[in-house]
C-alpha cells in the first residue's frame, strides 16, 4: 500500500534507511560504512539521512534497535507456545539467523564501536540474559537444570554463539552458520545445564 500522509512517508523513508544501512553494514562493515554510502545505495540525498538520524551513531543504534524489536517479538511468540529453555535458545537463534550477516559484523566490530552503540548492543544482551535465566529457573524447578549464575549462563551461551558467528567462514559451507550449526549448539548447551 502506498503511504498517504506525510507522517507515513516519513516512516517509510526511515525504514528504507535502516534496511539499507543494515545491508551495507553487513557487506562492508559498520566502521567502514559512511552515511553517504547508505544514502547512495538507495538513491537518496545525503541530507535525508540527517533529517532522520542526527549522527551516524544514531543510524547504527536504529539498526540495532530494529534487531531488538524482532528479538522481542520472537521471544513473545516463543512464550505463547513453550516456556522451556530450549525454546528460548531457538527463538534467539531464529532472529540471529534472519539478520546473521549484519549481526556477525556487529559482534566482530563491537570493541571498536563508540560507547553509545556498544551500550545498545549490551542492553539487547541484558534482555537475552534475562530471558535465558528465567527459562533456566523454570527448568530448575522441574529438576531439569542445575543452578548457574546469571552472567555466566548468558556469557557461556553468547560466547559459544559468537565464536561460531565471528568465524562463520570456517564453520559453515553455505551462507548461514546458524542454519547449519544452530541445532548442535542448542543441544550442546542443553547438556551443559543438566543437573
Amino acid at each position, binding site marked *: 500500500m502506498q503511504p498517504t500522509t506525510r507522517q507515513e512517508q516519513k516512516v517509510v523513508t526511515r525504514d528504507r534507511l535502516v534496511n539499507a544501512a543494515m545491508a551495507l553494514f553487513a557487506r562492508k562493515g559498520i566502521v567502514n560504512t559512511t552515511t553517504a554510502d547508505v544514502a547512495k545505495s538507495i538513491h537518496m540525498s545525503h541530507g535525508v539521512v540527517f533529517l532522520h538520524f542526527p549522527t551516524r551513531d*544514531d543510524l547504527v543504534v536504529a539498526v540495532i534497535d530494529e534487531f531488538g524489536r524482532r528479538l*522481542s517479538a520472537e521471544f513473545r511468540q516463543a512464550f505463547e507456545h513453550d516456556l522451556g529453555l530450549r525454546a528460548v535458545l531457538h527463538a534467539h537463534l531464529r532472529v540471529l539467523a534472519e539478520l546473521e550477516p549484519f549481526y556477525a559484523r556487529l559482534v566482530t566490530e563491537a570493541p571498536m564501536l*563508540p560507547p*553509545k552503540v556498544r551500550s545498545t548492543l549490551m542492553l539487547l544482551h*541484558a534482555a537475552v540474559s534475562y530471558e535465558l535465566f528465567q527459562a533456566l529457573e523454570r527448568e530448575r524447578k522441574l529438576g531439569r537444570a542445575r543452578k548457574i549464575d546469571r*552472567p555466566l549462563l548468558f556469557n557461556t551461551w553468547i560466547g559459544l554463539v559468537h565464536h561460531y558467528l565471528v568465524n562463520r567462514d570456517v564453520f559453515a559451507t553455505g551462507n548461514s552458520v546458524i542454519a547449519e550449526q544452530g541445532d548442535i549448539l542448542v543441544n550442546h548447551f542443553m547438556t551443559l545445564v543438566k543437573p
Partner: protein
Amino acid sequence: MAEKCPACGSCGMPMEKPEDFALGDVTRPYCRYCTDARGELLPYEQVLETNVGFYVDSQGVTRAAAIEMAQAMLADKPAWRGRH
C-alpha cells in the same frame, strides 16, 4: 518491519505492555523503573544506578564499564538531553 512500540524517554526501554509504563498508564512518557510510586521521574543518579546494575547483573561486566555504557545510553534520551 516489526511493529514499533514507544520507548521510555529516560532509559529507552521499549514499553510494550501497560505494566511497563509508569503507574501502568500508557500515556506516561517514562517506564516503571525510571519513576517513583507517584509516577514522577527519579533523579538522574538513581536512573543511572539502575542501568549500571542492569549491565553488571546480566553480563558480569565491571562497574566502571557499566557506568560508561549507562552514561552513553542516557546522554541523548529526552529526559536527560543537554544535562551536561
